[in-house]
């Protein structure tokens, strides 16, 4: 069953990646990238357990934190940047 979960997560990652490529606007892409990050955390937990990766829990914990910081940074700097780029088509 754990193999099925891994395969489901891999397919999920692929689908999320497609949304990250397609857009259509930047918020969709931020959403998809953040969602990709959380799915990677899940993949580390499930895959790490199934394949016996060493200290996978620490790394999953770290990923969850980094993903949060990264997404907040994207939103913060995007908001800051926007006033100068008024003539773009977001």
């Amino acid at each position: 069953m754990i193999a099925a979960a891994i395969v489901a997560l891999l397919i999920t990652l692929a689908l999320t990646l497609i949304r990250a490529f397609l857009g259509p606007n930047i918020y969709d892409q931020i959403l998809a990238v953040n969602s990709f990050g959380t799915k990677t955390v899940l993949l580390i937990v499930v895959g790490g357990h199934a394949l016996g990766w060493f200290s996978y829990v620490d790394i999953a914990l770290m990923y969850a934190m980094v993903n949060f910081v990264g997404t907040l940074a994207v939103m913060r700097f995007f908001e800051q940047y926007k006033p100068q780029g008024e003539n773009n088509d977001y």
Partner: protein
Amino acid sequence: MIENLELLIDVCLLTFLLLIVFAAIKTTNLFVATMLFGIFSFVTALLFLDLDAVDVAFTEAAVGAGFTTVLMLSALRLTGAFENVKHRHSVLGLFIVVLTGAALIYGVADFPNMGDANAPVHLHIAPEYIQLTQEKIDIPNVVTAVLASFRGYDTFGETVVIFSAGAAVLLLLGMGHAEPKHEPEQNLVLWVVVKPFIALILIFGLYVQFHGDFGAGGGFQAGVIFASGFILYSLVFGESYARQVVPASILPRFAALGVIIYGLTGLVSLLSDKTFLDYNALSSNPVSGQHLGILLVEAGVGLAVFSTVLLIFYSFSGVNHNE
């Protein structure tokens, strides 16, 4: 079964990497390219984990996915996020790239299969390191032992490189200062969630720093994690508050202090008639001397990396007036 699963994950992740880079080449929005580079680092770290490199995965996740993305985004804020539309597709460039790639693939044909235990790389020195770690240093993590003790010279050099990179960024951009009109908007939900989260990140940073002997972790990773706690504070509560918590002016001194701690540890052993960075001199018992030496050296590395990373972040996110 397990082998197949490992291989499946490996191939899937490599395919994701190819797709991500392809999309990054196609896009003209540099914001999107940077975000894609962030998930590129994530997938790379996952791949390292799949290939048994726990410490490297840790570093890549903290440094590549966390810090590089934040850095590039803050640089984009200063430069503008759109590529020129006349983005050229160089035929000559494509030709050169295909040629180089073909040569490399031809060269790779002679490589031993992946995972072959009898490949030449595995026969020399690596088994000795593993054996010597058990005999002389007695900590479980061979990577930390090699990094801090056997190859302490290299790591010292790398710490100095990081310090000088921080100095170079400081010379180019200056320390900057916080601009009140750029402060983030007040978002109560974010404030409430982030406050305990920062504490969690800092505790986790300490755990990684001191757990490096036994599991994945060490000074490099811990420094970046610790800095990212303060970066998170600055992102959510505003630059000027972060600068009150950790003033920018003490960061260069901390970075220098970290390098000095490393160097002094080496000097102590030099003064007691051993070679530079031979930790056996630090204590009457060689093994506990090694433990002490690794602890000190990792602390120096952690301090240097933490202050350099935070310093670079301040330089990029602050407002600079050059005149």
